[in-house]
């Protein structure tokens, strides 16, 4: 018997006993003690805080490289109907309400807030913050109640309305119908030491409008950029402390 298995067995035994004796109450107390199940179980592992800066001056309206790359990398469902298509990253066009003003284009994605309202409202703690600050959805646990979609001010979350059939990238799981999905900062690629797909595509296209890196590392490009140019997050007035910054809007 492996060590892990023994642990699992012990857990199962405890679970059965606890289940008999009002499991919800027990879990509740534990959840309060932990400050919510949403927090990752191994926060000590890293002090990394992944973040992103988007330079709206460099991003052009025609370019769709980041959205296409994301769709392919993460199997984001596309049915050709705007009501149901998944969007982990989308391009928006902003026009100031002034006569003859220049419009800007920029990508919108999950801002991986430090205070994520989606995580606060999730009734089963399926949304959680990973040790490196990435807000993720445990699709194995999501019940599809869509409270998080109502609570997210960035409209960063989409729901799987229909069973998507094809894999564009077999190495990344797709989603079954009936759960909520969103940007993960390509956590699977970060774990392999690679950049998120959108950032890679943006660099390749030559626009280089996205800077990605560790917000806690003083040597990183993103750290220096933020220190010098102080880009702003979207709707910072809400106090969510987003980790995606924009300059040039």
């Amino acid at each position: 018997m492996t060590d892990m298995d023994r642990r699992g067995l012990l857990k199962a035994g405890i679970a059965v006993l606890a289940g008999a004796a009002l499991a919800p109450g027990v879990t509740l107390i534990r959840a309060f003690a932990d400050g919510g199940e949403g927090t990752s179980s191994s926060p000590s592992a890293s002090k990394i805080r992944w973040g992103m800066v988007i330079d709206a001056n460099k991003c052009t309206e025609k370019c769709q490289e980041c959205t296409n790359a994301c769709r392919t990398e993460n199997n984001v469902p596309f049915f050709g109907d705007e009501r149901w298509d998944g969007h982990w990253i989308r391009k928006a066009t902003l026009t100031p309400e002034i006569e003859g003003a220049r419009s800007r284009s920029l990508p919108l994605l999950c801002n991986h807030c430090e205070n994520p309202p989606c995580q606060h409202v999730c009734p089963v703690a399926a949304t959680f913050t990973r040790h490196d600050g990435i807000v993720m959805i445990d699709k194995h646990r999501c019940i599809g109640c869509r409270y998080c979609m109502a609570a997210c001010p960035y409209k960063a979350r989409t729901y799987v309305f229909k069973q998507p059939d094809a894999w564009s990238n077999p190495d990344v799981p797709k989603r079954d119908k009936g759960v909520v999905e969103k940007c993960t900062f390509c956590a699977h690629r970060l774990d392999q030491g690679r950049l998120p797909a959108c950032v890679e595509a943006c660099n390749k296209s030559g626009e280089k409008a996205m800077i990605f890196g560790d917000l806690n590392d003083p040597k990183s490009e993103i750290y220096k950029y933020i220190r010098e140019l102080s880009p702003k997050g979207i709707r910072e007035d809400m106090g969510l402390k987003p980790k995606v910054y924009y300059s040039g809007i």
Partner: protein
Amino acid sequence: MSRDSLAAAALVAALLAAAAAPTLYTAAANGLFKKPPRPELVLPKGGDGKCVEPTDYMRANHMKLLVNARDRIVRGGEKLDKYHIEGCKNCHARRAEFCDRCHAYAGVKPECFGCHYLP
């Protein structure tokens, strides 16, 4: 025989048939005195025949390893390891010839394959 005893005999026969129905179904589908059916698995070629844990252990507990790995990796943020489902396809090249056979045999429909791709 009176009507009542006929009805009683029919009832008794029906009750006994109901009790024996599963046996009759399986015997009709497979034939008596034949070796019981078992899933024929196509094992990975070229490997050393060893999975991440001994075969007997995997047979009974692979689902626990997968669920455990799932929670450690998705929620704990640990790196992918040999217990994660994405690693299975390194050896088990065809799901239809391996995973599906036993699952169909035992009447199990795991959720994994709605999202995770195994060739």
